[in-house]
């Protein structure tokens, strides 16, 4: 049963990750809350599991959608430096402190993205409203 749930958690995280929405943001909490995986282990699983998935999805994306390599390089290069440093820091942080930090990160990110999406919805609605007014007149 545990194995089945682990695979299921992976599929859910994978779908969201494959859409380029950051699968880890849901995979990690699913693993820690429902399957009692310790925070650091859940983070490790997410990082490692992302690698083969990202390779396959990228091969598909190159053919189907294209990739902006300049932008990738511009972001990946500086991020690479800080990711190594912060990954090394994890050893010195307790799992509990890490969980709390991660939770706060999730909430802030979730709220920010939600506000952004709602704004776009309002924008789309406003346009529809104007077009209807023009057409009906």
């Amino acid at each position, binding site marked *: 049963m545990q194995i089945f749930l*682990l*695979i*299921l958690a*992976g599929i859910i995280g*994978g*779908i969201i*990750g*494959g*859409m*380029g*929405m*950051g699968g880890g*943001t*849901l*995979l*990690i909490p699913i693993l820690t809350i429902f399957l009692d995986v310790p925070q*650091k*282990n859940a*983070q*490790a*699983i997410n990082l*490692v*599991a992302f*690698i083969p*998935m*990202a390779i*396959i*999805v990228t091969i598909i994306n190159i053919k189907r*959608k*294209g990739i902006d390599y300049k*932008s990738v390089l*511009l*972001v*990946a290069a*500086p*991020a*690479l*430096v*800080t*990711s*190594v440093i*912060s*990954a*090394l820091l*994890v*050893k010195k*942080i307790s799992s509990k402190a*890490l*969980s*709390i*930090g991660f*939770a*706060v990160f999730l*909430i802030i990110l*979730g709220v920010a*993205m*939600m506000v952004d999406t709602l704004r*776009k919805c309002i924008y789309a609605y406003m346009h529809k409203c*104007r077009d209807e007014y*023009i057409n009906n007149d």
Partner: protein
Amino acid sequence: MLGKAKEIGNKQSLPCDRDYSKMSYGLLEKEKKGLDKLGKKGRIVLTVIASLFVGVANGLFGGGGGMLVIPIFTILLGLEEKLAHSSAILTILPLSLVSGIVYIVQGNFKIPDGLWVGGGVILGGLIGTFLMKKLSNNALKIVFYTLMIVAGVSTLIKNLG
């Protein structure tokens, strides 16, 4: 009809036809002007600074970096949304590779569990990439962000309670 639209635009007779009318990438026109003032160099500097946080999220929290990359690509670098998402996955790949190695060396990657989840992630990833066209579905996004907030609050409760 165009003349009518112009007339309405000038008069601003509609309550719904004001600030939001020239919005792009979720930004209002005046915010976009502020970004334009930065110029190309300013945008690149801002991108590099923001990228440092992407690395921190990836290394420290083992995920979530991709979510930060999307607004960098769309707002700062002006990429179209689907291109931003496919580029984001490739951006996170090298980060996850180096962070993942550090996590493995520190002994945080547990073999049987990790492999089961990993298999699921690959399967889910393939489904996800073909679902990417559903990205324009705002309802789906709102559900996802709600789940994120719920997951965050649950994690907090579990660790503080």
